[in-house]
C-alpha cells in the first residue's frame, strides 16, 4: 500500500479523483448527497407551484420579472458549469496551473451570477414592495430562489477554500477528489437553475 500521495506525470493514474478508496467514497457519497438534494429542491418546487398564483393582491410574477436579467444570469451560470468542466479536464492532464485558472473563472462567473441575483431581489423589494412577507407567492419565490442562491454562496466559498488551500502544493491524490466533488456539486446547482429559469421565470411570464 502506497503512503505517498504526491503526483507526477509518470505515476499519474488515469483518473486521479477516483484512484484511491477515499476518492471513490467521496465520488459516490456526493452523488448520493445530490440525490437527497434533488428531493429538497423538488419539495421547494412543489411548494412554489402550489403557491405561485397566491399573490394576495400583491404583485405577480408577470408584473415584476424581467427576462433580460434572468437570461444574463442563466448564461453566467451555464458558462461557469462549462469552465468547471475545463478545469476537470486539466486536472486529468495533471496541469494544475490551468486547472486553477479555469476554476478561478468559474468562481468569477459564480460571483457575477450572485451579484445579479442580489440586484434582482433588491429591485423587487424597493421598486415593487415585493417581499418575503408580502404574500404566499413572495414567501415561496424567495425561499426557492434563495435556497438556490444559498447553494451558490456555499459552492463559491467551497471553491475558494479549495483553491487557496492547495495553491502552493499542486495536485495530489488527496485533494484531486475534493476538486472533483466540487465540480459535480456545481453542475447540480446549474441544473437546478435551469429548472428555476423554466418553472419560475418563463412560466411566470408566459404561463
Amino acid at each position, binding site marked *: 500500500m502506497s503512503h505517498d500521495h504526491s503526483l507526477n506525470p509518470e505515476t499519474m493514474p488515469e483518473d486521479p479523483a477516483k484512484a484511491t*478508496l477515499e476518492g471513490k467514497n467521496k465520488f459516490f457519497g456526493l452523488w*448520493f*448527497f445530490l440525490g*437527497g438534494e434533488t428531493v429538497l429542491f423538488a419539495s421547494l418546487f412543489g411548494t412554489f407551484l*402550489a*403557491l405561485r398564483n397566491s399573490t394576495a393582491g400583491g404583485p405577480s410574477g408577470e408584473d415584476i420579472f424581467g427576462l433580460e436579467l434572468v437570461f444574463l444570469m442563466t448564461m453566467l451560470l451555464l458558462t461557469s458549469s462549462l469552465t468547471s468542466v475545463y478545469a476537470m479536464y486539466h486536472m486529468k492532464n495533471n496541469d494544475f496551473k490551468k486547472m486553477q485558472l479555469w476554476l478561478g473563472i468559474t468562481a468569477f462567473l459564480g460571483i457575477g451570477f450572485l451579484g445579479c441575483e442580489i440586484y434582482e431581489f433588491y429591485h423587487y423589494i424597493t421598486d415593487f414592495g415585493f417581499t418575503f412577507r408580502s404574500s404566499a*407567492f413572495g414567501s415561496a419565490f424567495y425561499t426557492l430562489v434563495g435556497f438556490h442562491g444559498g447553494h451558490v454562496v456555499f459552492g463559491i466559498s*467551497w471553491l475558494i477554500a479549495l483553491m487557496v488551500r492547495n495553491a502552493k502544493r499542486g495536485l495530489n491524490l488527496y485533494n484531486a477528489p475534493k476538486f472533483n466533488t466540487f465540480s459535480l456539486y456545481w453542475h447540480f446547482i446549474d441544473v437546478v437553475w435551469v429548472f428555476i429559469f423554466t418553472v419560475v421565470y418563463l412560466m411566470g411570464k408566459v404561463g
Partner: protein
Amino acid sequence: MSIAAAQKRGFGAFLWDYLTTVDHKKIAHLYLVGGGFFFILGGLEALFIRIQLIAPENDFISAGLYNEMFTMHGTTMIFLAAMPLLLGLMNAVMPLQIGARDVAFPFLNSLGFWLFMFGGILLNCSWFLGGAPDAGWTAYTPLSAVSPTHGVDFYVLGLQISGAGTLMGGINFLATIVTMRAPGMTYMRMPLFTWTTFVTSTLILFAFPALTVGLFLLMFDRMFGSAFFDVALGGNSIIWQHLFWIFAHPEVYILILPVFGVFSEVIPTFSKKRLFGYTSMVFATMLIAFLGFMVWAHHMFTVGLGPVANAIFAIATMAIAVPTGIKIFNWLATMWGGSITINSAMLWSLGFIPSFTIGGMTGIMLASAVADYQYHDSYFVVAHFHYVIVGGVVFGLFAGLHYWWPKMFGRILNEKLGKIGFWLFFIGFHLTFFIQHFLGLMGMPRRYWVFLEDQGLDTGNLVSTIGTFLMAISATIFLINIIYTSVKGEKASADPFDGRSLEWAISSPPPYYNFKQLPLVRGLDPLWVEKMDGKDNLAPAEPLGDIHMPNSSILPFIISFGFFIAGFGFIYQTDHQAWNFAIFIGMGIALGSMLMRSLKDDHGYHISKAELEREAD
C-alpha cells in the same frame, strides 16, 4: 498509536475516547446509549398518558400538559429512540457483515451521531423552558404555526438538527456498501440485514429532505413572518401535510425494514437453515421501499383530495401487503423443518410474526379509503400503528440486541431474564393495544385528554393502562439484565450462536481494525459455507499488511454543539434581538470547525504489519 493501549485508563480518558471516536463499533455504543435514554424518556411519557386515561374524567395531568406528553411521546419514540437504536445496530453489524474495516466516512459517522444527540437534547430542553411542543408529532398547520409557546420552535430546530445527522448516516451506509464490500461479497451474497440497511439508507436519503423543507417553511412562518401556511396571505396549510407525509410515510419503512433484516438473520441462525427465498426477500424489500414513496396521501383520505386520488392511494397502499406477505411466508418457511432453538432472540422473532400480521391486517382495513372515514383519528389508528411499530420495530430491536449483544460487548445476555422480559412485554403489549382497536371502533378519538363515564370506554382503558405497566416492568428487567450481564455475564466466544455471516468470523468484541486480513467470500452465508467445507474460518483475500485507520476527532462534537447554540438563538431571537448573537456565535463555531476540517489534511495513520504480527493470536 499502539494495539496494546487497552490498559486501565481513567474516566476522563474513557470519556474523551467516546467523544472523539470515529470507530463504527463505538459509535454504535453511543447510538444505543443515546437511543436507549430517549426510549426510557418516551416510555415515561407513555406512562403519563396511560395513567391520565386510566379512569373517566381523570385529572392526573392538565389538558395542556397532556398535549405536550403525547406530542413528545410520538416525536421522541420515532426520531430519538427507534431510529437511533436501529442506526446503532446498523453501525455495529453492517460493516462486519460485508467484511469492511470501517464505514466510508468515519468522521461523518461521528458527526451524524452528535447532531442527533444535540438535536434530541435541544428538543427536550423545551420541557424546562416554557413548555414542550404541543401540536402532535405530525405538527399539522395551522395549529403548529400559531401555537403560542416556544414548544413548536424547539420541535422545528431540534428535528432539523437531528434530521441532518440521520441523513449523513444514510449517505455513509450507502457509500460503504457500494465501495467497501470484501472480495467475493457480491450484492446477492450480502446478508439480509446489510440489504435492509442499504434499502433503508436509500429511504432516508430520499425521504428526509422533504421533512427538511417542511421544517424550514414552518420555521420561516413562525420566526420570520412568511406566509406559507397563512391563508389570509394566500398560504395553504395542506402543503405541510403533503411534505410531512412524503417524509413520514417512508419513515415508517425506515423503521420497519431494518428489523425485517434482523429477523432474517435471527430466524435462519436458530433454525439452522438457509433463509428461505433469499432473492425474493431482497426484491420484496426493494418493492416495499418503492411503494413506500407512493402512498403518503393515505394519511390524508379525509382531507378531501377527491375520489380519484383517494382510490389510487388506497390501491397502492393495499399493494404493499403483497411484498410484506412474501416476507412473512419466507420466515415461516425458513423455520419449516429446521432444527429450532428457542431463546430470547428467537422468542422476540416468533412473537413478532403474529403481532405484526395483526398490524398489517388493520393496515389493509385503514387503506380502504371509504372505511377510513370511520377509523380516522380514532383509537383504531393508535392501535394499528402501535401494532406495527411496537410489534414490529420494538420486538425487532430486542431480538437484534439479544442476538448481537455478544458481538458488541463480548458477553451473552442472561437468558432467564430475557425470557421473563419477553413474556411480560408480549402479554403487556397485547393487553394495551388490542383493546384499543375496539375503543376506536366505539368512537374514542385519539389525542383527547379525558373521556366521559359510562360510554362503554371505562373497562377498555383500564385494561390498556394495566398492560402498559407490564411493558414498563419488562423494559426495567432488560436494564437489570444489561447490568447483570456486564458484571456476571458469560463471556462470549467469537461465534456463540453457530452463526452464518461474517460478523461471527472475528472475535467478540472485534478488534478495532475488525479484520486483520480481509476475508475471501465464497458464497451466501460465507461463514456457513466454510463450516460446511470443514474449515473453521474464511481464507484471507490479501497478505498481512499495513492497515490504514482514520484519526479520532473532537470536531464532530464541536460542530454539533455550534448548531445547538445557534438553535437557541433562532428560537429566542423572536423575543429579543440580542439572541441573534447566539446565532452568529453558534453558526461561527459550527462553520469554523467545518472549515478547519476542510483545510487541515487528515491522512489517518497506519497500523504496521509488524505490530499486527506481534499481537498474540
